[in-house]
């Protein structure tokens, strides 16, 4: 087996195109993923035109909320580019230096203060798909800014209501000093009523007392109503099991698993098919090498190459994304089990094909759909179809390898042990199928 291993390494070294692809592919993919993640589209580059006068505020009771706070909130959601005029913003959008522009009109504070609906102007460019992506990203950013701004206004309104209830100096234009609060009126009034003889005046005072009590009680309630209106539905998220995987590290895991699969399946299938293409298979199997040893040799070589490529990719992407290097031991275990299962699948494909080209084509035609199917999220297709996808994903190694690597890299659910066991079983099953295929093909 060692002789065949050395021979295959020599052939691999002399296949310059294949070797170049094996080196360039992981480096290129790692760099692409790294750049894509480090230049995340979640903070789009947006031009912001603030046409409001400097220091413009929205008056809420005795509180003032600065409009510039809204602009600052919006800036924090996007990669903001401050521009002076609407025309300048339009030019930047047209040139493509920003993906959109937001114009904050000069009368926004007046409209909010007068309880009129204020509006922003948003300018887009680009094709339908790009517009859709930009709109959804920007709408989210504006919604977050709106939410933060409405919270500030709500807090100001709540302070004003509190002053009316508790009394004191309200600092509102025209309000008297040391104003009595609605909460303080009933005790004062009750003392006055007690000293009053029965009659019409006493009855009138009792009606005022009833109103003051009712008003104090309901104004206190309106503070809660304000906070409810500001955020009518609060979302409480509970993860039932496992740990949430950050999207960028999950993307890394997907890319590494896809690379592991492609390199491993293609090399294993191609390596075995090459023996038949060179007519050497029958010479080897006439007692020089056992079928099991030949399959093990092809699988080991493919798995070793794919393992190195995948580990290099993880390390390369690690320059862009924060990975927990303390878990590197688990990465190795997940990659080894994944590579073994993919290698077994590869030799099974190679046992069926008579030529390297046919084996490579078959490997790609099988691998690509497997990767796509394993990534189909629940709920995106009908229940029956999702179950069918689940069955297909279960009998091929991609999903199990993805879950094992996700668990190893991100401590994600399900636990790594189950995925490793699943991969080990698939390795045995595909190895047996390869053995059977080799026998049938002779």
């Amino acid at each position, binding site marked *: 087996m060692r002789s065949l291993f050395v021979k295959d390494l020599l052939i691999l070294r002399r296949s310059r195109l294949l070797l170049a692809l094996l080196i360039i592919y992981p480096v290129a993919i790692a760099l692409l993923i790294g750049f894509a993640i480090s230049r995340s589209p979640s903070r789009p580059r947006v031009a912001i035109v603030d046409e409001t006068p400097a220091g413009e505020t929205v008056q809420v009771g005795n509180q003032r909320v600065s409009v510039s706070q809204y602009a600052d909130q919006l800036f924090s959601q996007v990669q903001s580019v401050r521009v002076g005029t609407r025309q300048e913003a339009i030019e930047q959008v047209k040139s493509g230096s920003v993906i959109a522009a937001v114009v904050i009109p000069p009368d926004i504070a007046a409209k909010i203060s007068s309880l009129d609906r204020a509006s922003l102007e948003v300018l887009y460019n680009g094709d339908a798909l790009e517009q859709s992506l930009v709109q959804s990203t920007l709408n989210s950013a504006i919604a977050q800014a709106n939410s933060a701004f409405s919270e500030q206004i709500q807090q100001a309104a709540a302070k004003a209501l509190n002053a009316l209830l508790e009394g004191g100096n309200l600092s509102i234009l025209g309000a008297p000093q040391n104003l009595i609060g609605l909460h303080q009126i009933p005790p004062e009034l009750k003392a006055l009523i007690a000293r009053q003889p029965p009659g019409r005046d006493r009855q009138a005072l009792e009606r005022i007392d009833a109103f003051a009590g009712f008003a104090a009680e309901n104004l206190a309630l309106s503070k809660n109503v304000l906070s409810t209106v500001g955020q009518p539905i609060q979302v409480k998220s509970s993860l039932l099991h496992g740990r949430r995987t950050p999207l960028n590290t999950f993307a890394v895991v997907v890319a590494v698993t896809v690379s592991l699969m492609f390199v491993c399946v293609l090399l294993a299938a191609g390596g075995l098919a090459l023996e038949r293409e060179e*007519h050497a298979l029958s010479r080897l199997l006439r*007692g020089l*090498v056992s079928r099991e040893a030949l399959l093990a040799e092809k699988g080991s070589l493919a798995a070793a190459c794919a393992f190195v490529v995948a580990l290099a990719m993880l390390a390369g992407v690690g320059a862009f994304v924060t990975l927990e290097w303390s878990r590197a031991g688990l990465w190795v275990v997940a990659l080894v089990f994944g590579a073994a299962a993919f290698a077994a699948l590869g030799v099974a494909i190679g046992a069926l094909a008579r030529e390297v080209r046919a084996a490579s084509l078959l490997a790609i035609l099988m691998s690509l759909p497997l990767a796509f199917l394993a990534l189909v999220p629940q709920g995106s297709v009908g229940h029956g179809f999702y179950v069918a996808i689940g069955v297909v994903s279960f009998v091929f190694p991609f999903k199990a390898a993805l879950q094992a690597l996700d668990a190893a890299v991100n401590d994600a659910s399900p636990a790594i042990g189950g995925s490793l066991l699943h991969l080990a079983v698939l390795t045995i099953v595909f190895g047996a199928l390869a053995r059977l295929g080799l026998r049938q093909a002779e």
Partner: protein
Amino acid sequence: MNAELSVGALSKRYGTLEALHEVSFNAHPGELVAVIGPNGAGKTTLLSIIAGAQTASAGTVAPGPDRVGWAPQQPALYSKLSVAENLELFARLEGVPDRADAVGRMLDQTGLRGRADERVARLSGGNRQRVNVALGLIANPPVLALDEPSASLDPAQRERLWQFIVALAAGGTTVVFSTHNVVEAQRYADRAIVLADGRLVFDGTPQALMREAGEAQDGDMERALVAFLAQRGSREETSG
């Protein structure tokens, strides 16, 4: 003289198809045995079983594949390896003790010492076939099975290859070869075995086959084989 190769009642079935039916013959040291017959007669199957590349459904072959060298019809070589690397690899796999000596001997015998470091992909068809035969001989086996060794070679390449094979037989190696070129059997073989529909229908010298078919000794052996098979067909029809 003891038989170097002994084939006894060899049968091979592929499902319902019987590729070989109770084929038996012996071959002695240094003997050159030609296996001839029409397409689908079972020639390649017979040689593959003798070489151990296929298993028989029934019957016996002695010696085992470890003492039989084999050169399949299509050169079984690694085109990205050099001539010497191919020889070295199979010397290792065959467990040859002195590999360097075996490789050197094969390079000398094939006349390819000057091209030892050349990749097989760059060799002509004739030279590839010589390396193919050399791989079968690397472990110095007493029996060599050659499946259509001269197919796809030009006359000059064929001539060089046969000089090489005749020299091997002269050295004591038992050579069993299949061929479609009946003239080669007439020219080089000590014995001819005729297979038809998986059955051995003739085992004797090429001259005996000529006589059997009513062909003159200096006549055309291809014509003799066609006549022999036609006569056999008529006899079977009559007896049937």
